[in-house]
């Protein structure tokens, strides 16, 4: 990133030119996997490995700030491994910051590689994604990013979903709400009505919850939400459902 580089001499510059696009591809994949791993507390070791590897790769190219953020995230992931839930929140913030820094680097190298790539270098811990729609390409249009309002009483869960939807090319905003307000079904129904009446254009209201699907379906029907998705299906599937809902709204 401009102004961020260590004065590394000509070899660093040459390597950045030679490997910059590939680093970008790899970094995006690592950030994407890290975002997914934030929702899997039993797999923090993999998160540590992703962030550690990213820190090393960035350092080699003289991207000191990006490397420092990855390293901070790695330390926070290690604390999370030991049981600190606060560290999990800080780690999520670091991963979000990394996502931004990676895109800043993309903007600095070449406009031709600025668009998110669908097939990133998988690396040793990749999941096979053949056949699955890539979130990165779903919203890659010339229009302004579609806006998504997330209302969740859990800051950590909300931040996590924000990160995932942001990586999918959407423009998410998070509003935290008091737990007692959301627990009241009547108030939830009133919230849905208020959202529809105040929105300048049609909106799609989707309930996202950790409750069972039958219960979630029942509540979605009661408050006349347009759809629902259980958090148990995983962040990738939640993002897919949100994108599908936006496509339906666009028809």
């Amino acid at each position, binding site marked *: 990133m401009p102004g961020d580089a260590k004065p*590394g001499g000509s070899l660093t510059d040459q*390597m950045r030119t030679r490997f910059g696009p590939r680093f970008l591809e790899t970094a995006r994949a690592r950030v994407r996997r890290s975002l997914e791993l934030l929702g899997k507390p039993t797999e923090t070791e993999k998160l540590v490995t992703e962030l550690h590897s990213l820190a090393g790769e960035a350092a*080699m190219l003289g991207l000191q700030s990006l490397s420092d953020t990855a390293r901070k995230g790695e330390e926070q992931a290690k604390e999370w491994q030991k049981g600190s839930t606060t560290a999990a929140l800080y780690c999520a913030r670091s991963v979000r910051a990394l996502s931004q820094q990676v895109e800043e680097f993309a903007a600095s190298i070449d406009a031709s590689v600025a668009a998110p790539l669908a097939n990133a270098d998988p690396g040793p811990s990749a999941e096979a994604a053949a056949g699955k729609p890539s979130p990165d390409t779903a919203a890659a249009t010339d229009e302004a990013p579609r806006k998504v309002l997330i209302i969740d009483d859990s800051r950590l869960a909300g931040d996590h979903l924000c990160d995932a939807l942001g990586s999918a090319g959407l423009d998410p905003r998070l509003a935290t709400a008091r737990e007692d307000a959301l627990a009241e079904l009547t108030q939830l129904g009133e919230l849905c009505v208020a959202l529809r009446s105040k929105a300048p254009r049609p909106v799609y209201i989707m309930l996202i919850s950790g409750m069972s699907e039958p219960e979630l379906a029942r509540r979605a029907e009661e408050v006349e939400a347009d759809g629902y998705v259980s958090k148990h299906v995983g962040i990738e599937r939640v993002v897919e459902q949100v994108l599908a809902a936006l496509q339906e709204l666009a028809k």
Partner: protein
Amino acid sequence: MAANERKRILICDDSHLMLDMAKEALERAGYSVLVAQDFSQLANVQEGQSLDLILMDVQMPELYGDDVAMVLKEVRGVRTPIYLLSSLSAEELAERADEADVDGYICKRDGIDALVQKVKEILNDG
């Protein structure tokens, strides 16, 4: 320098990108570079090869490089100098290098220029 006169370096790192960057930088500096992404590959590559230096990443999926280095030295009797190569802090690397009884360490944080320079110093090509 003829290919058979080049000093031979083996790098073990789980990052394919890291391996390619380090290999290219060191080959430009005149070295012959072999790579391995895990212990299985490392064992295959190292066996029967005359090496001048082994660079070992520390944090890899399912294994730690300092543990692998200890096995190479104490179990397989490898006499080639082994250096840990990692983005851990210098303090932590120094501690791990000492515990694993390897020959030293190189910090990825110092960048690729520093990596090449450090290798030259280790191999007395500075």
